[in-house]
């Protein structure tokens, strides 16, 4: 019984009228991992999480949490989950302490244990000084932390985090990441959604990229990055007007289109191997195109994302077709 997956979902569907917000997503999250669901606004991340958390009825497909059928047994499912939604779900009329105490009591924790756990969590999240302040006086970051603390009172084995760091400053964000890592070190499984590619990269063991309700790719951060090319050559042209000519040079040389950002004269080229960079630079010199800066890096998930969803290049309106073209379906 060791290997029951934390989350196992097949063909999840949610429709709002004619619109399919989640359109046949499979998801498999193993115990003890951080699984990242990456997608732009409106991709269907929240909708998917809400279905798994019994907050929205599942229209199609099936889902199990630690082997418990979500649709058939919502009450059991809820006992296995801590949910931190995208928007703070704590009570504005209560203090931080009262909030945590109440959520403990509502889940059958005794009054004394509930008070002790509340104090412990507030300390862990650096909120003890604000423990007796009403939430209305909390900053966004404090609310977010309290919200996460509220999901941990009963120490559920699985935590859902919907965009845990959206709207946080970089330092608070780093702290949130540490907290999430500590949770996993303590034996939790975490399913999180994010729009930030570096967040998924930093935190997640595995990532699913979803767009318009579909999963367009899945894999470890490294697998996803490798699929786009092993490194990226970043160039800045002296004269932005040379861009189309430069793009033509690259296309002839490598048989692939570079990613352009017209205003700034920047150009990114995906490379199979870093030493191909020299070939590109030489060809540009021969074509008489000036360059102000050059670097060769591992690709960011940003590039993976753009390549997958195709939003910025204006092509690939059918995300699954794009994925096939890029041969990125490492999903099993």
């Amino acid at each position, binding site marked *: *019984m*060791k290997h*029951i997956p*934390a989350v196992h979902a097949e063909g999840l569907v949610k429709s709002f009228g004619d619109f399919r917000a989640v359109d046949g997503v499979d998801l498999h999250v193993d*115990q003890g991992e951080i699984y990242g669901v990456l997608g732009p606004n409106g991709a269907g991340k929240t909708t998917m999480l809400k279905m798994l958390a*019994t*907050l*929205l*009825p599942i229209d199609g497909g099936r889902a199990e949490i*630690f*082997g*418990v059928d979500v649709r058939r*047994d919502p*009450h*059991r499912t*809820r*006992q*296995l*989950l801590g*949910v931190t*939604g995208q928007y703070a*779900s*704590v*009570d*504005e*009329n*209560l203090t931080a302490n*009262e909030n945590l105490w*109440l*959520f403990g*009591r*509502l*889940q*059958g924790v005794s009054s004394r244990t509930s008070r002790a*756990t509340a104090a*412990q*969590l507030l300390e*862990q999240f*650096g*909120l003890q*000084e*604000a423990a007796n302040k*009403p939430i209305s006086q909390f*900053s966004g*970051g*404090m609310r977010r*932390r309290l919200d996460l603390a*509220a999901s*941990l009172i009963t*120490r559920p*084995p699985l935590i859902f985090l919907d965009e845990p760091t959206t709207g946080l400053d970089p330092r608070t964000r780093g*702290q949130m990441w*540490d907290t999430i890592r*500590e*949770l996993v*070190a*303590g*034996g*939790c*499984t975490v399913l999180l959604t994010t729009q930030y590619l570096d967040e998924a990269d930093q935190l997640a063991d595995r990532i699913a990229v979803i767009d318009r309700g579909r999963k367009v790719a899945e894999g470890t951060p490294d697998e996803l990055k490798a699929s786009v090319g092993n490194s990226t050559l970043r160039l800045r042209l002296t004269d932005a007007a040379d861009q189309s000519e430069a793009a033509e040079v690259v296309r002839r040389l490598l048989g692939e289109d570079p990613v352009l950002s017209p205003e700034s004269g920047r150009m990114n080229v995906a490379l199979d191997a870093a030493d191909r960079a020299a070939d590109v630079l030489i060809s540009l010199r021969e074509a008489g195109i000036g360059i102000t800066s050059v670097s060769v890096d591992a690709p960011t998930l940003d590039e993976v994302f753009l390549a997958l969803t195709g939003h910025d290049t204006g092509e690939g309106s059918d995300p699954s077709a794009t994925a096939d073209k890029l041969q990125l379906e490492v999903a099993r």
Partner: protein
Amino acid sequence: MTMQMTQPAPVATTPRRLTPGDVAARTTSHNSLRETLSQTMSMAWRATKKMRRNPEQFFDVTIQPLLFTAMFAYLLGGGLSGSVEAYLPLVIPGILAQTALTACMATGVQLREDMEKGVFDRFKSLPMARIAPLAGPMIADLLRYAIASTLTFVTGIAMGYRPGGGVAGVAMAIVLTMIAGWSLAWVFTWVGTLARSAQSVQGISMMIMFPLTFMSNALVPVETLPGWLAAFVKVNPVSYVVTATRDLANDGQLTGHVGWALVACAAVIAVFAPLSVRSYKRHL
């Protein structure tokens, strides 16, 4: 900002030794009755906290008894009973029911407002009984009914009302009013879970409340009414409550009317509590 996360302070999760499989095996399929009651009381606690921090919630139950008692007594007393004093024993129990009903109308509006808030997402995600978020605030509202009924009696007594039932009769009348308020609040709770916005809850509740209070024997004796109206007034649960309250406050007697009033309350709960829970669940 001075807040800081304490460094790897031994996480709250470290003491956990249960594997997820153990946790899954320990889950229960339903809340027991005891759990449900405890959750309801926790939600009631939350509602009283909220009341204390928003004291304007007590306006209706403090102003209205003073205003209505004086207004209706002086307005209708002379015409209906010959004098204000003679009218008081008739009208005070009526106003008692009326203020309780107005107070419980607010229950639906507040539930609706509450349900829009983020915290309800968390309540829904917790393994708690679906009746607790509905019944909890209603239990806290008993305090509002108690204030409203006590103030109504105080105003009446100040105006010259001498309840024949004595202290015991008045106390029982207050308790009955609280029971009735709690029962009828289920109607408005149901409306609260159905309607799309707090405003529409308010509107619909008004439409329910006015006929229920005014088309009852709260302010006038039934004998003075035309036949069709008298027929409605007689089946109106508010009339049962008013009659029973009169028996208690004026005569200090536990009459059959009191029994019927309790039956009427139970009937209202039996219909509207399940409807409310069902409609609340559908919001998920």
